[in-house]
């Protein structure tokens, strides 16, 4: 046991004295988590996945503005800011004398990404709509064609979108506004119609136009009725923490190759200790490093990222399952590092192949691009990436409130991968010794 502990201590001592190695192990994943989380937070805004800012310039101050305000608020995930009320359109986009932002200021604010959507409701829009409906009803009762009512000008609502806003998000907003206006139109037409026929049916109610015929209920799947989508932090913290963990292949394989090249391995192999103990010592030391690394990144997600405006990292309700997944991923990463160290001929080979293979596994595993946007073939291939197993397990726990049972397959895959890599490394090492 003392030989094992001595090896663990020696490995940790060597690691702490390797500044470049420490940068790779701790600073790189921490920087990646912070940068990518902040970038993706902005991307989610432009795709409408999280709360977006809608700047509303309501010159009409009538029923249309009220209906849009109410309709968008009901749709959720939108923060409506009144132009001229705490929203000045940004630097160089001054307010009018009456304290309201002019149309150009709203347009500029959206163009510069300060808000994702801008809506301008021109003055007199409600009055114009009502006038058109009255004209249409009057023309209808007089037996004249609808075109007779065209002498009242068609009111116009103007929408502006952040240039980065994606197509689906634009369509969703345009459709929502259309729906709100259509409902208003129905209600106004019903009111006007009721007014016209009340002389014949005095007891006729005028709110029949707002009665709904069909209800549509949208539900998201989630355990225990929990409705959650991964936030940028829930996606990126586990993803880049895993990426960082697997990067231990660089110092770990490097340590093995250096031992081989500088003759230390020769000395070790003549000592009265099994080489398996020495390899186990390395694995324990690097698993410990991986766990510390993951812990640091978790703390960044909980305490540092929220200071920069992202949501707080929530780790679900099964911390023991998180611990087991992290331990399994750390073992898989260490096993892979040992295998690369054994099979690489030189340090240069390992330091090239190791990181490149991790980047490829990360790309396949949904670390950089979510798996669901990949083509079918790539999605199939991604099932073979250890980083995908780790990420799927942690997403299951962080986002879908999964537990130990629900992540057992991922744990099993990671442990089998670790065992496979260590087994292959041992066979490769033994073959080399025999010759």
């Amino acid at each position: 046991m003392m030989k094992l502990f001595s090896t663990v201590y020696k490995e940790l001592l060597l690691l702490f004295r390797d500044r470049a190695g420490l940068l790779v192990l701790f600073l790189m994943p921490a920087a990646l988590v912070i940068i990518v989380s902040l970038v993706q937070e902005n991307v989610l805004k432009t795709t409408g996945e999280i709360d977006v800012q809608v700047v509303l310039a309501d010159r009409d101050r009538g029923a249309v503005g009220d209906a849009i305000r109410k309709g968008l608020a009901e749709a959720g995930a939108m923060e409506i800011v009144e132009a001229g009320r705490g929203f000045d359109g940004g630097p160089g986009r001054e307010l009018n004398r009456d304290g309201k932002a002019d149309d150009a200021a709203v347009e500029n604010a959206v163009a510069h990404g300060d808000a994702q959507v801008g809506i301008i409701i021109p003055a007199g829009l409600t009055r114009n709509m009502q006038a058109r409906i009255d004209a249409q009803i009057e023309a209808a009762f007089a037996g004249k064609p609808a075109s007779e009512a065209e002498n009242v000008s068609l009111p116009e609502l103007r929408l502006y979108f952040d240039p980065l806003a994606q197509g689906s998000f634009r369509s969703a907003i345009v459709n929502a506004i259309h729906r709100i206006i259509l409902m208003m139109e129905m209600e106004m037409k019903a009111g006007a119609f009721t007014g016209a026929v009340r002389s014949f049916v005095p007891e006729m109610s005028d709110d029949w136009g707002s009665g709904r015929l069909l209800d549509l209920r949208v539900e998201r799947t989630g355990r225990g009725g929990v409705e959650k989508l991964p936030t940028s932090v829930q996606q990126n913290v586990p993803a880049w923490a895993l990426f960082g963990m697997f990067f231990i292949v660089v110092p770990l394989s490097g340590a093995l190759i250096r031992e081989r090249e500088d003759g230390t391995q020769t000395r070790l192999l003549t000592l009265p200790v099994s080489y398996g103990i020495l390899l186990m010592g390395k694995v324990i030391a690097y698993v410990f490093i991986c766990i510390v690394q993951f812990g640091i990144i978790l703390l960044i997600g909980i305490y540092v990222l929220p200071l920069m405006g992202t949501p707080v990292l929530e780790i679900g309700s099964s911390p023991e399952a998180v611990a087991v997944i992290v331990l399994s991923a750390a073992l898989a990463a260490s096993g892979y590092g040992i295998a690369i160290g054994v099979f690489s001929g030189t340090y240069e080979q390992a330091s090239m192949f190791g990181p490149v293979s991790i980047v490829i596994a990360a790309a396949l595993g949904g670390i950089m691009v979510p798996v669901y946007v990949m083509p079918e073939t790539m999605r199939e291939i991604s099932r073979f990436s250890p980083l995908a197993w780790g990420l799927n397990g942690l997403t299951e726990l962080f986002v879908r409130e999964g537990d130990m049972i629900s992540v057992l397959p991922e744990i099993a895959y990671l442990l089998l991968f670790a065992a496979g890599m260590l087994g292959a490394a041992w066979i490769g090492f033994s073959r080399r010794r025999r010759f």
Partner: protein
Amino acid sequence: MAILKPFEENEEEPCLVAQDLKKRYPAAEKPAIDDLSLSVHAGEIFGLLGPNGAGKTTAISVMTGLLRPDAGAVHICGIDLFKRSKAARKFFGLVPQEIALYPNLTARENLRYFGRLYGLKGKQLKERVAESLSIVGLSDRAHQRIRTFSGGMKRRANLSAGLLHSPRLLFLDEPTVGIDAQSRNMILERLLEMREKGVAMIYTTHYMEEAQTLCSRIAVMDEGRIVAHGSPADLLRGYPECRDLGALFLHLTGKRLRD
């Protein structure tokens, strides 16, 4: 505790017996060692000389258990190296050709680590580390990292790691290559002191004057075989046309370059 244990029981038994060792690397035309047999007794320094590629390092690798031979047996202090390797390894030390130490650890940290792997602990470990460093004159540099050492200091530190557990048999693979005269002189003096204390040594070198001064017996190897064997004086008597060991070496192995 004595710096090195005296050879206590059964001094007649050789510390090393290698019998009929054969080793051919995959795809190699000729065997790296062929029918190599030798024995080394306590207090004896056995010089293994030969040109590059003669099979010296392969012989040491097989005799220390780093490589398995295709045929033959090795006994260390009476223990079969390939059947009871862990027990046999306690009796010998290796000073490899490379500086087999961790450059980012201090000399003391290196020795403490290797000492623990030999099973030393507590006070005994502390004393053995201090004594091993003292033997090679590095006591006052024990706190320095190996990468800050000069070439001579590294060689001496490399030797001290092989002495930690007071071995009865020491394999030295070119321990003085590329160092200054002072360090070389110190290493040779220490090896002679150890010989007096009964430590057996297998010594490979390209420096013929070293071999002539140090070795009780010499085997000249070429193409995996021992081509001459005996004490330096006996060998020179057998070849009167050779005035020294260097001339004898060239006479036996030829002047053809070995790359």
